[in-house]
């Protein structure tokens, strides 16, 4: 009985097995399976007769065998579940393939980053929105619709110590432009430091597109920056040479001449303590008169804008302001 049950079991197993086709594949030379790349490299020589006799079938059977080997390998890999999907972890690729770009070089730190590293300052992530107490709303910290957005100023107070005719709006705009320009300069300086290229000093802002004047200025500065103040430099055919740029600034030696220093300091002290305020009367009078002219001129322009004001009532020189006879009011 036991023998018959055993036989039964065996028969059943065999029949089950026959239902399914095998997953084993036999090859002469072992096939190189690279799970990392999902790649199979079969080096077995191709039977040319078989190939020529029944091409498509031969190729598809070859493909099937090799793919079976690859899948056999993949099914041996460790599995885990990710969001109801069964996933196998594939290993690193064996075959090295050429990269598309060279290995990235380590970026040089900016000046601030170096300082922060030195001091151990950590970068703090700031929230994008800030609660504004005045409007009781969440506004962005910077930029459009923020608290310090320039477009919001319909009213700007003139501080006590400021000139009443100064344009506060223009001033604020100008300050912002300066800040932006400074930031840009520092950014470019960081790049220049990273690339180890030299940056021109004060007076020339490194720009990508320089105007003709700026190029001119840069050229003249470069020419002057020699020990002999550009005196022996070659002259270009159409170059305009600046005439009075030959003076060298003379500096006193920083140490050694104690009597000269003493005299200088004494003079300054005397001026401060004993001396009367320096007043150049002629200059003061001229300034007063000029300011008066400016006020007159402004009134004229306003009159002109409003209606057909008397254009020719005043003499030309006053109309034109300072541009008229300069010597007349000296």
């Amino acid at each position: 009985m036991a023998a018959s049950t055993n036989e039964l079991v065996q028969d059943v197993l065999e029949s089950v097995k026959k239902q399914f086709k095998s997953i084993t594949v036999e090859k002469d030379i072992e096939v190189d399976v690279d799970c990392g790349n999902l790649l199979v490299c079969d080096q077995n020589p191709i039977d040319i007769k078989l190939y020529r006799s029944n091409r498509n079938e031969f190729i598809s059977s070859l493909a099937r065998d090799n793919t079976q080997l690859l899948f056999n390998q993949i099914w041996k890999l460790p599995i885990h579940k990710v969001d109801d999907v069964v996933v196998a972890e594939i290993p690193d690729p064996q075959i090295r393939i050429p990269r598309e770009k060279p290995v990235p070089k380590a970026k040089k730190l900016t000046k601030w980053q170096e300082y922060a590293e030195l001091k151990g300052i950590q970068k703090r992530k700031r929230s994008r929105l800030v609660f504004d107490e005045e409007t009781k709303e969440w506004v962005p910290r910077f930029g459009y619709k923020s608290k310090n957005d320039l477009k919001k100023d319909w009213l700007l107070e003139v501080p006590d110590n400021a000139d009443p005719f100064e344009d506060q709006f223009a001033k604020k705009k100008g300050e912002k432009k300066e800040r932006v320009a400074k930031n840009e300069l520092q950014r470019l300086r960081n790049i220049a430091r990273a690339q180890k290229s030299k940056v021109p000093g004060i007076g020339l802002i490194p720009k990508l597109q320089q105007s003709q004047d700026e190029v001119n200025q840069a050229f003249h500065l470069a020419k002057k920056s020699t020990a002999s103040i550009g005196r022996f430099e070659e002259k270009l055919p159409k170059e305009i040479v600046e005439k009075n740029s030959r003076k060298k600034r003379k500096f006193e030696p920083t140490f050694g001449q104690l009597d000269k220093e003493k005299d200088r300091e004494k003079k300054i002290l005397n001026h401060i303590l004993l001396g009367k305020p320096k007043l150049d009367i002629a200059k003061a009078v001229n300034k007063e008169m000029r300011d008066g002219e400016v006020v007159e001129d402004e009134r004229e322009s306003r009159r002109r804008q409003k209606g057909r004001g008397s254009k020719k009532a005043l003499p030309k020189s006053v109309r034109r302001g300072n541009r008229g006879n300069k010597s007349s009011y000296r």
Partner: protein
Amino acid sequence: MHRIVKPKNKRSKRFLDAKESQIIENTKTAMFIRGSQTSDVVNNALKEIYIMKKPNAVMFTKKNNIRPFEDFTSLEFFSNKNDASLFVFGSHNKKRPHNLVMGHLYDYHLLDMFELGIESFQSMNSFKNTKLTVGSKPCLVFAGELFNSDHSYKRLKYFLISKFLPGSDGAKRPPRWARACPLLHCCDGKVVLKSYKTLLKKSGTKTPRVELEEIGPSMDLVMRRTHLATTDLYKRSLKVPKTAKPKKRKNISIDAFKTTHGRVHMEKQDLGNLQTRKMKALKRVREEKKQKEAQPRNKELRSQCIRVRNKILIKPA
């Protein structure tokens, strides 16, 4: 950012960031370009390979008068603008009918270039069955000894691997899926390219039986001209950055109970120079000192245990 010209918006900044060289690279983009004269076969071939390579592919709509083997600069320019390191250029003329020039670039300069002629071509439409979704990643099968013996075929193999390489979306891939399987096969000096869809059938065991159904384009390619990179340039392109390599953890071991053991290597200490006077534990208690003075000096006593301040020091005999 270390760029002189700042990108104007976040989108362009993202594009430029992706374009920079990275430690682990993005999937390579391929550009498909048509020459000034193309045939139907070439057009269809280009279109079908483009579909296989989507979404990491760019198809140029206009015809370009380029001769890759003579002047490669325009292709390098295109590669720079499209951030594509692979290209397939199709053309047709009497001397080289149904021509495909494929190649890859390193650092926007030409690396390898292969000119393949299409001998026979069957498009996807001729195989009447359901295809796979665009973007599914293939597994590759290379059969034939020529792919390992011949230098140019070897390079061709590496090129084709890099071309069809699945993107690096983590090291995980679901094991139950039906995928295309381009077969590249070398016999009679021809490269036969076929695409199949894998069907997983039941087998007696856990691992399924694989059956293939042909879906994709099938073409016979003949290698015509090649332009291979010099060995040192190729070596340079294969360089792996140090950070990408996994770091070896030395002197750390895990035993059967999953406790981590570490090994610390000390430099040799000169025990003669140890400062014992300032170590409190080694100092004698006052009472003991008195006791010691009271007792006569005895050799026997010295060899006994000396009780020093609640700690027992055993002196070697």
